[in-house]
């Protein structure tokens, strides 16, 4: 997306932050903004995920500005 000029933010749970950073660096985007959320995501009830999304929305919007690399 960044390559196509679209601002991008990567969302990763904390235990996958290393993978997210490692892959972003390997593909030439060490500055790619990453929004970190607590693990786990997969087995979490949907209402908790929604509550988290609302809580993190502003942080995400701020990071989108940083996503124009």
């Amino acid at each position, binding site marked *: 997306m960044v390559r196509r000029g679209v601002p991008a933010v990567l969302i990763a749970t904390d235990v*996958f932050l*290393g*993978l997210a950073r*490692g*892959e972003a660096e*390997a*593909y030439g985007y060490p500055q790619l903004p990453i929004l970190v959320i607590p693990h786990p995501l997969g087995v979490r009830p949907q209402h908790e995920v929604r509550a988290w999304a609302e809580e993190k929305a502003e942080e995400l919007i701020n990071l989108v500005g940083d996503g124009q690399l």
Partner: protein
Amino acid sequence: MKPEIIVGSSFEDVYEKFLEEGWGDGLPIIPPTEDRVARMLAATDREPDEVVAVVPPGQGEATVLKVAINAVMAGCRPEYFPVVLTAVEAMCRPEFNLLGIQGTTNPVTVAGFVSGPVVKALGFNSGWNCLGQGNRANATVGRAIRLVLINIGGGRPGELDRATHGQPGKYSFFFAENENDSPWEPFHVEQGFPPGTSTVTVIGASGTVNMLEPTDNAEELLRVIALTLRSPAGNDYIFNGEPWLIISPEHAHVLSAGGYNKESIRRVLWENSRIPARDFTKKCLQYWVESAWRPVLGEITDDTLIPIAESPERIRIVVAGGPSIHSVFIPTFGDTRAVTLPITDRHGQPLYENR
């Protein structure tokens, strides 16, 4: 750039140094000294600095030299080297999705097999225990692939390899087609290569499921294989995959005697291995199954039958193994397609051809 080759004072020193640097799979390695690497390089006409492929997710350039170093470490004989080079090229093709395979939480590994005269020429094991220990070609070619994934592709556990459990096949998973005991045409011919071509196929294999079945009735055999495939927590079903079957020669002969060829086997298995959408968890349906299958099947209801793969052709079959009444189901990563390449020299001329 010529990679630095560290020479310790003893075999153990080199092993310790390599472990410390994270350059390996944990097992002892053959120290890649200059003379050993030179012997490996002499087995190909490709230039040492030629880039065979870029290996995700670390995006390391797999030059012929770097692959040679890993082949030495794995214990390969030099004559195996063209097979390793071909496997590396194959697993880095985009349709194989090595980026997904390396970084995923799934236990998937790069499995592979050879078909054609290379099997006999290099002494690969296609018979008894062909997925197990005991044969140098099988063991070390598979291990060389793993070392390339780690040392060039950056697939280190907890770093860019995020497998929840992994699987024993991540050390080595390489075998050969048992063409002599198969009732059907060789795999490489089925793939459109001229008879007598040597090929390497790579598979994104999540494990092995053994199937013991003594029946001499082809329909019964297909019925129980189809039942064994059915796994609502399997990536092939969830993501529209490409499952593999390693049929033993004895089972292949039961099926062939019953009038089946690979095409009709695929059709029967595909039809009878479908599972109703209600068998998946609601979350799995909502997150993955619907997005993978709605474009293919339309709206998904509880009664929609979800197949293991989009079409019967996507069920892949190879004959291998020794005597007795076992066959093997290889579930895959799902979002991967196997790649088959001919083993050639730098000019594209086939190696190990039947003359």
